Protein backbone atom coordinates (compact mmCIF):
# COMPACT_ATOMS: atom_id res chain seq x y z
CA UNK A 1 0.00 0.00 0.00
CA UNK A 2 1.19 3.50 -0.74
CA UNK A 3 1.66 4.49 2.90
CA UNK A 4 3.00 1.22 4.30
CA UNK A 5 6.40 1.51 5.97
CA UNK A 6 9.11 0.17 3.68
CA UNK A 7 10.70 -1.97 6.40
CA UNK A 8 7.60 -4.12 6.84
CA UNK A 9 7.62 -7.53 5.13
CA UNK A 10 6.01 -7.31 1.70
CA UNK A 11 2.85 -9.36 1.45
CA UNK A 12 2.40 -11.81 -1.42
CA UNK A 13 -0.94 -13.55 -1.84
CA UNK A 14 -1.62 -16.69 -3.86
CA UNK A 15 -5.00 -16.97 -5.55
CA UNK A 16 -4.82 -20.29 -7.41
CA UNK A 17 -5.32 -20.69 -10.33
CA UNK A 18 -4.92 -16.94 -10.76
CA UNK A 19 -2.03 -14.56 -10.30
CA UNK A 20 0.31 -13.84 -7.43
CA UNK A 21 -0.72 -10.58 -5.81
CA UNK A 22 2.14 -8.43 -4.57
CA UNK A 23 1.93 -5.06 -2.86
CA UNK A 24 3.43 -2.48 -5.23
CA UNK A 25 5.50 -0.81 -6.37
CA UNK A 26 7.51 -3.68 -7.87
CA UNK A 27 10.39 -4.15 -10.25
CA UNK A 28 10.42 -7.48 -12.09
CA UNK A 29 13.49 -8.88 -13.75
CA UNK A 30 12.57 -10.95 -16.79
CA UNK A 31 14.29 -13.99 -18.26
CA UNK A 32 16.25 -11.86 -20.72
CA UNK A 33 17.64 -9.65 -17.95
CA UNK A 34 15.45 -6.65 -18.71
CA UNK A 35 13.31 -5.15 -15.97
CA UNK A 36 9.78 -3.82 -15.92
CA UNK A 37 8.20 -1.81 -13.14
CA UNK A 38 4.71 -1.12 -11.85
CA UNK A 39 3.78 1.38 -9.17
CA UNK A 40 0.21 0.17 -8.79
CA UNK A 41 -0.90 -0.30 -5.14
CA UNK A 42 -1.03 -4.01 -5.83
CA UNK A 43 0.30 -5.95 -8.76
CA UNK A 44 -0.97 -9.23 -10.24
CA UNK A 45 1.87 -11.42 -11.54
CA UNK A 46 0.99 -14.09 -14.09
CA UNK A 47 1.64 -17.67 -12.96
CA UNK A 48 -0.14 -19.55 -15.78
CA UNK A 49 2.28 -18.28 -18.47
CA UNK A 50 -0.63 -17.53 -20.80
CA UNK A 51 -0.72 -13.76 -20.30
CA UNK A 52 -0.09 -11.60 -23.35
CA UNK A 53 1.14 -8.89 -21.01
CA UNK A 54 3.73 -10.99 -19.20
CA UNK A 55 4.70 -10.69 -16.38
CA UNK A 56 1.40 -8.99 -15.52
CA UNK A 57 -1.83 -11.00 -15.27
CA UNK A 58 -4.39 -10.33 -18.01
CA UNK A 59 -6.93 -12.94 -16.77
CA UNK A 60 -5.87 -15.46 -19.43
CA UNK A 61 -5.81 -18.13 -16.68
CA UNK A 62 -9.60 -18.24 -16.77
CA UNK A 63 -11.35 -21.41 -17.87
CA UNK A 64 -12.67 -21.29 -21.39
CA UNK A 65 -16.09 -22.62 -22.26
CA UNK A 66 -18.32 -22.93 -25.25
CA UNK A 67 -21.11 -20.93 -23.60
CA UNK A 68 -21.87 -17.69 -25.38
CA UNK A 69 -22.45 -14.81 -23.09
CA UNK A 70 -20.75 -11.50 -22.67
CA UNK A 71 -21.18 -8.90 -20.03
Amino acid at each position, binding site marked *: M*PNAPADRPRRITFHEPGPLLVDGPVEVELEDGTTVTSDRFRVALCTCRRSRRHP*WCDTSHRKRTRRTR*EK
Partner: protein
Amino acid sequence: MDQHRPEPPLPSARGRISAAVEEHLLGTGPLPRDEDTTAVPAYGDDLQLALYLCYELHYRGFADVPPDREWDPDLLRVRAALEHRFLAALREDTPVHDTLEGSLAELLVEPVDGSGVTHYLRDEGELWQLREYAAQRSLYHLKEADPHAWVLPRLSGRAKAAMAAVEFDEYGGGRPERLHARLFADLMTDLGMDPTYGRYLDAASADALATVNLMSLLGLHRSLRGALVGHFAAVEITSSPGSRRLADAMRRTGAGLAAAFFYDEHVEADAVHEQVVRHDVIGGLLEAEPHLAGDVAFGVDVTGYLEDRLAAALLTEWRTGRSSLRGGL
Protein backbone atom coordinates in the same frame (compact mmCIF):
# COMPACT_ATOMS: atom_id res chain seq x y z
CA MET B 1 -8.46 20.93 -22.26
CA ASP B 2 -10.69 21.73 -19.33
CA GLN B 3 -13.30 19.08 -18.72
CA HIS B 4 -14.44 20.65 -15.48
CA ARG B 5 -16.20 23.88 -16.48
CA PRO B 6 -18.59 25.13 -17.42
CA GLU B 7 -21.39 22.81 -16.35
CA PRO B 8 -22.87 21.10 -19.40
CA PRO B 9 -26.08 22.45 -20.90
CA LEU B 10 -29.32 20.61 -20.25
CA PRO B 11 -29.97 18.02 -22.97
CA SER B 12 -33.13 17.94 -25.10
CA ALA B 13 -36.10 16.42 -23.32
CA ARG B 14 -37.29 13.01 -24.53
CA GLY B 15 -40.92 13.14 -23.40
CA ARG B 16 -43.32 14.55 -20.88
CA ILE B 17 -41.44 13.54 -17.69
CA SER B 18 -37.98 14.65 -18.72
CA ALA B 19 -39.46 17.90 -20.10
CA ALA B 20 -41.20 18.63 -16.79
CA VAL B 21 -38.03 17.84 -14.78
CA GLU B 22 -36.08 20.28 -16.96
CA GLU B 23 -38.75 22.96 -16.55
CA HIS B 24 -38.55 22.52 -12.79
CA LEU B 25 -34.75 22.67 -12.80
CA LEU B 26 -34.91 25.97 -14.67
CA GLY B 27 -37.74 27.26 -12.47
CA THR B 28 -40.10 27.65 -15.41
CA GLY B 29 -42.69 24.93 -14.85
CA PRO B 30 -44.17 22.27 -12.57
CA LEU B 31 -42.75 18.81 -11.90
CA PRO B 32 -44.28 15.77 -13.59
CA ARG B 33 -47.43 14.38 -12.00
CA ASP B 34 -47.39 10.98 -10.34
CA GLU B 35 -49.62 9.48 -13.03
CA ASP B 36 -47.11 10.58 -15.68
CA THR B 37 -44.23 8.76 -14.02
CA THR B 38 -46.17 5.49 -13.92
CA ALA B 39 -47.35 5.69 -17.53
CA VAL B 40 -44.04 5.40 -19.40
CA PRO B 41 -41.79 2.34 -19.99
CA ALA B 42 -39.23 1.77 -17.22
CA TYR B 43 -36.27 1.42 -19.63
CA GLY B 44 -37.51 4.02 -22.11
CA ASP B 45 -35.93 7.29 -23.14
CA ASP B 46 -38.20 9.57 -21.15
CA LEU B 47 -37.88 7.88 -17.76
CA GLN B 48 -34.18 7.10 -18.12
CA LEU B 49 -33.32 10.67 -19.11
CA ALA B 50 -35.47 12.14 -16.31
CA LEU B 51 -33.68 9.92 -13.80
CA TYR B 52 -30.30 10.77 -15.32
CA LEU B 53 -31.06 14.49 -14.91
CA CYS B 54 -31.95 13.98 -11.24
CA TYR B 55 -28.73 12.03 -10.60
CA GLU B 56 -26.46 14.36 -12.53
CA LEU B 57 -27.21 17.11 -10.00
CA HIS B 58 -25.08 15.05 -7.57
CA TYR B 59 -22.12 14.97 -10.00
CA ARG B 60 -21.54 18.08 -12.12
CA GLY B 61 -24.97 19.71 -12.38
CA PHE B 62 -26.14 21.66 -15.42
CA ALA B 63 -25.65 25.17 -16.73
CA ASP B 64 -28.35 27.61 -15.57
CA VAL B 65 -29.59 25.17 -12.91
CA PRO B 66 -29.10 26.40 -9.33
CA PRO B 67 -26.77 23.93 -7.52
CA ASP B 68 -29.12 23.65 -4.54
CA ARG B 69 -31.72 21.94 -6.73
CA GLU B 70 -29.69 18.85 -5.76
CA TRP B 71 -31.57 18.72 -2.43
CA ASP B 72 -34.94 20.07 -3.60
CA PRO B 73 -37.42 17.89 -1.65
CA ASP B 74 -40.08 18.00 -4.38
CA LEU B 75 -37.57 16.89 -7.00
CA LEU B 76 -36.28 14.16 -4.65
CA ARG B 77 -39.85 12.86 -4.35
CA VAL B 78 -40.09 12.61 -8.13
CA ARG B 79 -36.68 10.94 -8.26
CA ALA B 80 -37.85 8.38 -5.70
CA ALA B 81 -40.89 7.59 -7.86
CA LEU B 82 -38.68 7.12 -10.94
CA GLU B 83 -36.23 4.98 -8.97
CA HIS B 84 -39.08 2.84 -7.70
CA ARG B 85 -40.22 2.15 -11.27
CA PHE B 86 -36.68 1.38 -12.44
CA LEU B 87 -35.73 -0.85 -9.52
CA ALA B 88 -39.03 -2.73 -9.58
CA ALA B 89 -38.53 -3.48 -13.29
CA LEU B 90 -34.96 -4.63 -12.66
CA ARG B 91 -36.00 -6.93 -9.82
CA GLU B 92 -38.76 -8.36 -11.99
CA ASP B 93 -36.66 -8.87 -15.12
CA THR B 94 -33.21 -9.91 -13.85
CA PRO B 95 -32.57 -13.64 -13.62
CA VAL B 96 -30.66 -13.82 -10.32
CA HIS B 97 -28.55 -16.87 -9.44
CA ASP B 98 -29.45 -18.87 -6.34
CA THR B 99 -26.08 -18.11 -4.79
CA LEU B 100 -23.45 -15.40 -5.06
CA GLU B 101 -20.92 -18.09 -5.97
CA GLY B 102 -23.12 -18.97 -8.95
CA SER B 103 -23.34 -15.34 -10.06
CA LEU B 104 -19.57 -14.89 -9.92
CA ALA B 105 -18.68 -18.30 -11.39
CA GLU B 106 -20.49 -17.47 -14.60
CA LEU B 107 -18.34 -14.35 -15.06
CA LEU B 108 -15.09 -16.14 -14.31
CA VAL B 109 -15.18 -18.32 -17.40
CA GLU B 110 -14.34 -16.98 -20.81
CA PRO B 111 -16.44 -18.12 -23.77
CA VAL B 112 -14.29 -19.25 -26.71
CA ASP B 113 -17.10 -18.38 -29.10
CA GLY B 114 -18.15 -15.07 -27.58
CA SER B 115 -20.38 -12.86 -29.71
CA GLY B 116 -20.74 -9.70 -27.66
CA VAL B 117 -20.09 -6.08 -28.53
CA THR B 118 -16.36 -6.23 -27.81
CA HIS B 119 -15.97 -9.38 -29.94
CA TYR B 120 -17.79 -7.62 -32.76
CA LEU B 121 -15.68 -4.47 -32.48
CA ARG B 122 -12.46 -6.50 -32.34
CA ASP B 123 -13.31 -8.57 -35.42
CA GLU B 124 -15.18 -6.21 -37.71
CA GLY B 125 -15.83 -2.91 -35.95
CA GLU B 126 -15.31 0.16 -38.09
CA LEU B 127 -14.02 3.48 -36.84
CA TRP B 128 -17.51 5.04 -36.83
CA GLN B 129 -18.70 2.21 -34.59
CA LEU B 130 -15.78 2.68 -32.20
CA ARG B 131 -16.72 6.36 -32.03
CA GLU B 132 -20.33 5.49 -31.31
CA TYR B 133 -19.23 3.08 -28.60
CA ALA B 134 -17.06 5.80 -27.06
CA ALA B 135 -19.96 8.28 -27.18
CA GLN B 136 -22.30 5.83 -25.42
CA ARG B 137 -19.68 4.90 -22.82
CA SER B 138 -18.50 8.47 -22.27
CA LEU B 139 -21.42 9.03 -19.91
CA TYR B 140 -19.70 6.72 -17.46
CA HIS B 141 -16.02 6.88 -18.37
CA LEU B 142 -15.82 10.68 -18.08
CA LYS B 143 -16.87 10.23 -14.46
CA GLU B 144 -15.24 6.83 -14.06
CA ALA B 145 -15.25 5.52 -10.47
CA ASP B 146 -17.37 8.44 -9.19
CA PRO B 147 -20.62 6.48 -8.68
CA HIS B 148 -18.72 3.83 -6.72
CA ALA B 149 -16.99 6.29 -4.42
CA TRP B 150 -20.33 6.79 -2.64
CA VAL B 151 -20.16 3.33 -1.15
CA LEU B 152 -16.98 4.05 0.82
CA PRO B 153 -18.64 5.54 3.94
CA ARG B 154 -21.03 2.56 3.99
CA LEU B 155 -18.22 0.01 4.24
CA SER B 156 -15.84 -0.72 7.10
CA GLY B 157 -12.56 -2.45 7.83
CA ARG B 158 -11.19 -4.76 5.14
CA ALA B 159 -13.89 -3.93 2.60
CA LYS B 160 -13.43 -0.17 3.00
CA ALA B 161 -9.63 -0.31 2.78
CA ALA B 162 -9.74 -2.49 -0.34
CA MET B 163 -12.43 -0.41 -2.04
CA ALA B 164 -10.50 2.79 -1.32
CA ALA B 165 -7.33 1.25 -2.77
CA VAL B 166 -9.10 0.30 -6.01
CA GLU B 167 -10.71 3.74 -6.27
CA PHE B 168 -7.29 5.35 -5.69
CA ASP B 169 -6.03 3.40 -8.70
CA GLU B 170 -9.08 4.44 -10.78
CA TYR B 171 -8.27 8.04 -9.86
CA GLY B 172 -4.75 7.74 -11.24
CA GLY B 173 -2.89 6.93 -8.03
CA GLY B 174 -2.68 10.61 -7.15
CA ARG B 175 -1.66 11.79 -10.62
CA PRO B 176 -4.23 13.78 -12.58
CA GLU B 177 -2.84 12.75 -15.97
CA ARG B 178 -3.56 9.14 -15.04
CA LEU B 179 -7.13 9.58 -13.85
CA HIS B 180 -9.06 6.96 -15.79
CA ALA B 181 -11.57 9.65 -16.76
CA ARG B 182 -8.70 11.66 -18.18
CA LEU B 183 -7.36 8.64 -20.10
CA PHE B 184 -10.81 8.27 -21.63
CA ALA B 185 -10.86 11.92 -22.63
CA ASP B 186 -7.54 11.28 -24.39
CA LEU B 187 -9.10 8.29 -26.15
CA MET B 188 -11.95 10.48 -27.38
CA THR B 189 -9.50 13.04 -28.70
CA ASP B 190 -7.67 10.25 -30.59
CA LEU B 191 -10.99 9.27 -32.13
CA GLY B 192 -11.59 12.83 -33.27
CA MET B 193 -14.34 13.39 -30.69
CA ASP B 194 -15.10 16.20 -28.27
CA PRO B 195 -14.14 15.07 -24.73
CA THR B 196 -16.18 17.77 -22.99
CA TYR B 197 -18.18 16.36 -20.07
CA GLY B 198 -21.80 15.84 -21.08
CA ARG B 199 -21.15 16.43 -24.78
CA TYR B 200 -22.80 13.18 -25.90
CA LEU B 201 -25.68 13.04 -23.43
CA ASP B 202 -28.15 13.95 -26.19
CA ALA B 203 -26.75 11.20 -28.40
CA ALA B 204 -26.75 8.39 -25.81
CA SER B 205 -29.42 5.73 -26.10
CA ALA B 206 -31.84 4.87 -23.30
CA ASP B 207 -30.06 1.54 -22.79
CA ALA B 208 -26.76 3.37 -22.26
CA LEU B 209 -28.39 5.80 -19.82
CA ALA B 210 -29.81 2.85 -17.89
CA THR B 211 -26.36 1.34 -17.28
CA VAL B 212 -25.17 4.61 -15.71
CA ASN B 213 -28.41 5.20 -13.81
CA LEU B 214 -27.95 1.78 -12.23
CA MET B 215 -24.58 2.85 -10.79
CA SER B 216 -26.01 6.08 -9.41
CA LEU B 217 -29.03 4.28 -7.97
CA LEU B 218 -26.88 1.72 -6.16
CA GLY B 219 -24.25 4.26 -5.14
CA LEU B 220 -26.65 6.80 -3.64
CA HIS B 221 -28.63 4.38 -1.47
CA ARG B 222 -26.98 2.87 1.57
CA SER B 223 -29.70 0.22 1.55
CA LEU B 224 -28.30 -0.97 -1.80
CA ARG B 225 -24.63 -1.11 -0.74
CA GLY B 226 -24.46 -4.87 -1.22
CA ALA B 227 -25.77 -4.52 -4.77
CA LEU B 228 -23.29 -1.68 -5.47
CA VAL B 229 -20.43 -3.94 -4.43
CA GLY B 230 -21.77 -6.78 -6.59
CA HIS B 231 -22.18 -4.40 -9.51
CA PHE B 232 -18.61 -3.15 -9.11
CA ALA B 233 -17.31 -6.72 -8.98
CA ALA B 234 -19.15 -7.56 -12.21
CA VAL B 235 -17.66 -4.53 -13.94
CA GLU B 236 -14.13 -5.34 -12.80
CA ILE B 237 -14.32 -9.09 -13.52
CA THR B 238 -15.60 -8.62 -17.07
CA SER B 239 -13.37 -5.65 -17.87
CA SER B 240 -9.99 -7.28 -18.57
CA PRO B 241 -10.95 -9.62 -21.41
CA GLY B 242 -13.32 -7.05 -22.93
CA SER B 243 -10.68 -4.33 -22.72
CA ARG B 244 -8.19 -6.57 -24.47
CA ARG B 245 -10.58 -6.97 -27.39
CA LEU B 246 -11.22 -3.22 -27.50
CA ALA B 247 -7.48 -2.45 -27.41
CA ASP B 248 -7.11 -4.84 -30.38
CA ALA B 249 -9.96 -3.02 -32.15
CA MET B 250 -8.27 0.34 -31.59
CA ARG B 251 -4.98 -0.97 -32.99
CA ARG B 252 -6.59 -2.68 -35.98
CA THR B 253 -8.40 0.51 -37.00
CA GLY B 254 -5.40 2.75 -36.31
CA ALA B 255 -7.42 4.76 -33.80
CA GLY B 256 -4.33 6.07 -32.03
CA LEU B 257 -1.97 5.43 -29.14
CA ALA B 258 -4.10 7.01 -26.41
CA ALA B 259 -7.18 5.12 -27.61
CA ALA B 260 -5.36 1.78 -27.33
CA PHE B 261 -3.70 2.79 -24.06
CA PHE B 262 -7.01 3.38 -22.27
CA TYR B 263 -7.97 -0.25 -22.83
CA ASP B 264 -4.45 -1.65 -22.30
CA GLU B 265 -4.42 0.07 -18.89
CA HIS B 266 -7.78 -1.54 -18.08
CA VAL B 267 -6.58 -5.04 -19.03
CA GLU B 268 -3.82 -4.77 -16.46
CA ALA B 269 -5.51 -2.67 -13.77
CA ASP B 270 -8.73 -4.65 -13.73
CA ALA B 271 -6.93 -8.00 -13.53
CA VAL B 272 -5.74 -6.68 -10.15
CA HIS B 273 -9.00 -4.95 -9.19
CA GLU B 274 -10.99 -8.09 -9.87
CA GLN B 275 -8.95 -10.05 -7.32
CA VAL B 276 -9.09 -7.29 -4.72
CA VAL B 277 -12.82 -6.75 -5.15
CA ARG B 278 -13.71 -10.42 -4.96
CA HIS B 279 -11.46 -11.36 -2.06
CA ASP B 280 -11.36 -8.20 0.03
CA VAL B 281 -14.32 -5.97 -0.86
CA ILE B 282 -16.94 -8.71 -1.18
CA GLY B 283 -15.13 -10.94 1.32
CA GLY B 284 -14.82 -8.13 3.85
CA LEU B 285 -18.38 -6.94 3.39
CA LEU B 286 -19.88 -10.40 3.84
CA GLU B 287 -17.67 -11.12 6.83
CA ALA B 288 -19.16 -8.03 8.49
CA GLU B 289 -22.66 -8.32 7.02
CA PRO B 290 -23.31 -11.87 5.79
CA HIS B 291 -27.01 -11.12 5.25
CA LEU B 292 -26.06 -9.01 2.21
CA ALA B 293 -24.96 -11.98 0.06
CA GLY B 294 -28.24 -11.98 -1.86
CA ASP B 295 -27.92 -8.25 -2.56
CA VAL B 296 -24.37 -8.72 -3.85
CA ALA B 297 -25.63 -11.47 -6.19
CA PHE B 298 -28.41 -9.17 -7.41
CA GLY B 299 -25.82 -6.45 -8.10
CA VAL B 300 -23.73 -8.86 -10.18
CA ASP B 301 -26.66 -10.20 -12.17
CA VAL B 302 -28.51 -6.92 -12.72
CA THR B 303 -25.32 -5.47 -14.21
CA GLY B 304 -25.20 -8.35 -16.68
CA TYR B 305 -28.88 -7.87 -17.47
CA LEU B 306 -28.51 -4.20 -18.41
CA GLU B 307 -25.21 -4.75 -20.23
CA ASP B 308 -26.81 -7.52 -22.30
CA ARG B 309 -29.69 -5.20 -23.20
CA LEU B 310 -27.28 -2.49 -24.34
CA ALA B 311 -25.15 -4.99 -26.28
CA ALA B 312 -28.18 -6.42 -28.11
CA ALA B 313 -29.37 -2.93 -29.05
CA LEU B 314 -25.96 -1.83 -30.33
CA LEU B 315 -25.41 -4.97 -32.39
CA THR B 316 -28.92 -4.84 -33.87
CA GLU B 317 -28.24 -1.36 -35.25
CA TRP B 318 -24.64 -1.91 -36.31
CA ARG B 319 -25.26 -5.19 -38.14
CA THR B 320 -27.61 -3.37 -40.47
CA GLY B 321 -25.31 -0.36 -40.86
CA ARG B 322 -27.46 1.94 -38.73
CA SER B 323 -26.36 4.35 -36.01
CA SER B 324 -26.97 3.35 -32.39
CA LEU B 325 -27.07 6.98 -31.32
CA ARG B 326 -29.90 9.47 -31.23
CA GLY B 327 -29.23 11.84 -34.10
CA GLY B 328 -25.88 10.26 -34.98
CA LEU B 329 -22.56 11.83 -34.06
